[in-house]
């Protein structure tokens, strides 16, 4: 294609400081050198190359330590002011491989949640930091809210069911839950970050080591995409959790959703940007009507325009969200709620826009877009998987309810 993606899909560069830009450049170099320019090799040797590249990214480049506080040996990007930089990184990694992007973003979310607590616990912080600073790739699994089962009354987070129960014990809490569905990595997580609720329905977030007693992992789940993320269902059978590993500050779950919407949005837009690159090359090498280059046919050009427009606008929207999060000066409930609502709206719009772009692009590529050889179908499957799991339940309906509550003060929905 021969053009710089940042010159095409412009964004407010002032959101990134020089340090952030240098890390983003480094990751782009890795992505270009190791994956983007070696798609065929990467696909054919996926099982071992995925693990190899993940190690390079997490350990050699060090992005696993991105949000570990600087005083504990990390990059110190553990503040909302770094939201634009983290978004840029999620995008770069997603451009290479969405599974790597999603897995990379999860530890960032963990530390962001831990360090935002007003009375954050130094022991917990340093224990987590020490584990995530080791020379081994770590994988947290996130269990958020989702659909409940008919006949079961569950505590709710804005209508979504919280399926893990936390009962207070003398030393902390005991967790119980059946057939819990992590966003990713249920089968391989070494730490679970779990949204749970106590007997009064008060929600909180618990950190549970992957080898804790009472955790049962189900068989591997085969999914449309993101299969490298190794998901499976989880049962918690009286799993003990120390008091300091439960975060119960108001607004925690909203913030968790906000970060997940931003970062997974970045992963999807990154995947879409590589989709764009592949499509652009395609449109210059194929003809229609007996010799007209695809991109020079007005109808095909309008499809190509749709693809570019959706990706460009999705990136801008996410940058707006990241900028809004970075600029937040307080953590008052109304600020958190505002960010949560905007993250839901923008996250939803971004995933929808990116899927639309990819569907349009595949229409133009025809059968070739469908063959694994051309690599675009993997992006299409991965992003659809991200879109579906991000919704949690019932498509956009819960997000519409969040939006209606915010803008219209609805109280019954």
């Amino acid at each position, binding site marked *: 294609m021969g053009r710089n993606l940042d010159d095409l899909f412009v964004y407010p560069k002032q959101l990134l400081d020089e340090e952030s830009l240098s890390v983003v450049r480094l990751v782009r170099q890795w992505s270009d050198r190791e994956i983007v320019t070696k798609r065929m090799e990467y696909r054919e040797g996926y099982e071992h190359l995925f693990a190899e590249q993940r190690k390079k990214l997490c350990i050699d480049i060090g992005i696993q330590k991105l949000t570990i506080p600087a005083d504990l040996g990390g990059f110190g990007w553990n503040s909302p002011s770094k939201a634009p930089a983290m978004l840029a990184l999620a995008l770069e990694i997603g451009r290479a491989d969405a599974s790597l992007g999603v897995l990379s973003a999860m530890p960032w979310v963990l530390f962001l949640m831990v360090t935002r607590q007003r009375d954050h616990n130094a022991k917990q912080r340093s224990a987590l930091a020490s584990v995530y600073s080791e020379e081994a790739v770590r994988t947290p699994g996130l269990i958020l809210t*989702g*659909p*409940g*089962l*008919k006949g*079961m*009354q*569950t505590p*709710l987070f804005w*209508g*979504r*069911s919280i399926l893990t129960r936390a009962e207070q014990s003398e030393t902390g809490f005991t967790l119980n839950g059946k057939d819990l*569905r992590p*966003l990713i990595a249920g089968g391989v997580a070494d730490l679970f970050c779990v949204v749970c609720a106590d007997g009064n329905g008060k929600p909180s977030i618990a950190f549970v080591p992957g080898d804790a007693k009472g955790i049962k992992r189900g068989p591997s*789940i*085969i*999914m*449309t*995409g993101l299969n490298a993320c190794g998901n499976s269902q989880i049962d918690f059978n009286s799993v003990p959790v120390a008091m300091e590993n439960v975060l119960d500050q108001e607004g925690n779950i909203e913030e968790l959703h906000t970060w997940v919407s931003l970062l997974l949005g970045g992963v999807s837009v990154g995947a879409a940007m590589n989709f764009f690159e592949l499509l652009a090359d395609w449109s210059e090498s*194929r*003809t*229609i*009507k*007996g*010799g007209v280059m695809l991109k020079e046919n007005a*109808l*095909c050009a309008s*499809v190509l325009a749709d693809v570019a427009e959706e990706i460009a606008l999705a990136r801008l929207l996410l940058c707006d969200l990241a900028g809004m999060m970075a600029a937040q000066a307080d953590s008052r409930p109304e600020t958190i709620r505002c960010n949560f609502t905007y993250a839901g709206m923008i996250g939803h719009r971004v995933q929808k826009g990116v*899927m639309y772009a990819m*569907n349009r692009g*595949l*229409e*133009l*590529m*025809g*059968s*070739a*877009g*469908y*063959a*694994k*050889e051309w690599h675009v*179908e993997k992006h*299409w*499957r991965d992003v*659809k*998987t991200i*879109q*579906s*799991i991000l*919704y949690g*339940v*019932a*498509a*956009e*309906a*819960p997000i*519409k*309810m969040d939006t209606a509550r915010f803008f219209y003060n609805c109280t019954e*929905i």
Partner: protein
Amino acid sequence: MMHFDEFSRPEEYISPFDRHFRRLLRKTIEESIMPFRRQYDEDWKDHHLIEPAFDKIMVGLGLQKGLFPMEYGGMGLAQSDYFFRAGYMVCEELGRADTGFAVALGVTYWPLLVISVAPYVNERLIAEFAPMFCNSNKAVFAANAMTEPQGGSDIENLGLLGGKTIRTTARLEGDEWVINGHKLWPTNSGGVSKLFGVPCTTKPGSDNPKDFAFIYVPADLPGVTQGGAYEKAGMAADKNGDIWFEDVRVPSWYRAHGPGKDAEAFYQLIPFGQVMSCAFLTGAMMNLYERLYEFVSTRTYNNSPLKENDAIAGIIGRIAGDIDICRILGYESAMIGDRRNKPYGKPLISEDVVGRVRNIKDFVSDRAVDCFGKAMDVLGLYGADRDWDIEKHWRDIKIVQLWMGGKQLCQMEAARYFFNCETL
């Protein structure tokens, strides 16, 4: 629960074949395909699981001989006045389980209908190929080797380009055609087919339909080379690959009909392919309804079943509405095909039929892709799970929207027909 059979279709369009055969076909599909379909993606290359099921459908139920006249042991569907509707029923039932199966069967009919459907009937070729399909106790497939490496959809755009972009050549030497060329992507390639229908040109670069030739090539002839199956996003039961023809010699009478007539008969493939595409899609959509019904009845939001929430009901209501409309349109497209021999019908090769049927297929494809995408989102965390089947259909049906020239060709056909565009 409303049964999925209750999605609308005009009662008067239901063929006699439908009344007798659908129940038996469904039972066989539910026993031999549906319990195994979640494992088909991993079976894309070897077809260890897929092949036995094909034997049950193609041989056990006799569907591979469907087009051939009864005197050869066939079912005589091509000679009936409900050929399109019968095909629709079969492909819809198969599509409910696995669109890859439906495509493999439908495409086996494809090259054969060039010589079987009036007014383009070639008795000698029917007699020649009938034993291959009617006397076998293993599933036998045929393929239409159409697409070429450059300008893939151009061959399907025969009305506009007249075959001038075809690079596969047929040269008459004595009483044999000598064929050279390279084809991509035919359904039932990748080593599956025993017989290819090959669109060729007798004069490269010519847009005169008389220079278009449709020639049958048995797959085991010297000079025919098939590549391995492509790995794809879905459609594991349908193998696709490269085919090379290098100085392949076939008898001169393996040409379907001769100069001019070949192009006309070949053009019949387009409406048949579009109508069956609708059938694959509405079949899959009916299964979507079954699976979605189960999910929205058993999972909750706000501690009430999803289907009882007004906002969610708005989404799933639209999905069901779309399935209903698409099925009506699909059957209407089949009836357009079957009206061809009646006073108020139009020839299959007419712009009228091709334009309208392409239009319906384009609409139904768009709705199907949208409905499956939405249904996956309704399932949320579970939407991408193989176990809920919807994601498999979502992957499988995307290619239906893309093939046969894809959306853009459908749009151009519609514009040309409805607005008399002269330069498109």
